């Protein structure tokens, strides 16, 4: 057995011993993956899992390193890039990925990617035109 395999074994026992908690956070992540385009309710989820909402958030952060909200935003921004690349309008995109206001969508998009959704789309579309012409 290599040094790395021994370390894996040690870390697994020390850090990842609680399979129940791990199953819970994986369940939360899958729930976000399935529902991020719609209304999302952590309250509903925590009730289904018999744990408090705050405990759920703490557990998620412990195992994934980010909060469920941060993960949800990343998911939505990633999907919105796909929509914008395919030519969907900024307003349509905003609601299609589950945001409720154009203002907060634009602000988050700019914070995460460095460009506003409008700028991003203009760049992507002009890029694909260049490719088609060449």
């Amino acid at each position: 057995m290599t040094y790395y395999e021994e370390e894996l074994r040690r870390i697994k026992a020390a850090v990842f011993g609680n399979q129940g908690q791990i199953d819970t956070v994986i369940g939360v992540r899958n729930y976000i993956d399935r529902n991020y385009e719609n209304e999302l309710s952590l309250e509903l989820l925590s009730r289904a899992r018999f744990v408090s909402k705050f405990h759920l958030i703490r557990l998620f952060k412990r195992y994934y390193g980010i909060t469920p909200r941060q993960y949800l935003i990343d998911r939505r921004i990633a999907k919105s890039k796909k929509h914008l690349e395919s030519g969907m309008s900024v307003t349509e995109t905003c609601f299609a990925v589950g945001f409720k206001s154009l203002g907060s969508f634009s602000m988050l998009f700019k914070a995460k990617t460095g460009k506003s959704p409008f700028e991003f789309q203009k760049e992507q579309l002009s890029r694909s035109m260049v490719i088609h012409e060449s």
Partner: protein
Amino acid sequence: MRVTLISIPVLDQEKALQFYTEKLGFIKKKDAPLDGGNRWITLVSKEAQDGPELLLEPAPLHFEPSKVFQDALMEAGIPWTQFDVDNVDSEYKRLTDLGVEFSVKPAEMGTVRFAVFNDTCGNNIQIVQTL
């Protein structure tokens, strides 16, 4: 400042280029000649061609401490670099069919499924799927 490049030390750039493009499926983005037969070779993922570039860095060939460090990591089985995949098990099957050797078979730890293979250029590489 932006993160756009990560380096991977390789003993033989040409051999690495073949392994990383033909077996792993990366795409060559830049290839420019440098001094002494070295090249500036960068690769990108097929799915993110405007994403970060992977530099095939020939340091182990010219800078002894780099070689010593690389050999020690290899000996200990430690992967210094990891890549994300959608499905570890299907990548494991695809790569073993191509003759790639794994030192850690697909296994789970916490919220990830992972495996470790030998890139034939002196490195252990870890592939990871987040569960």
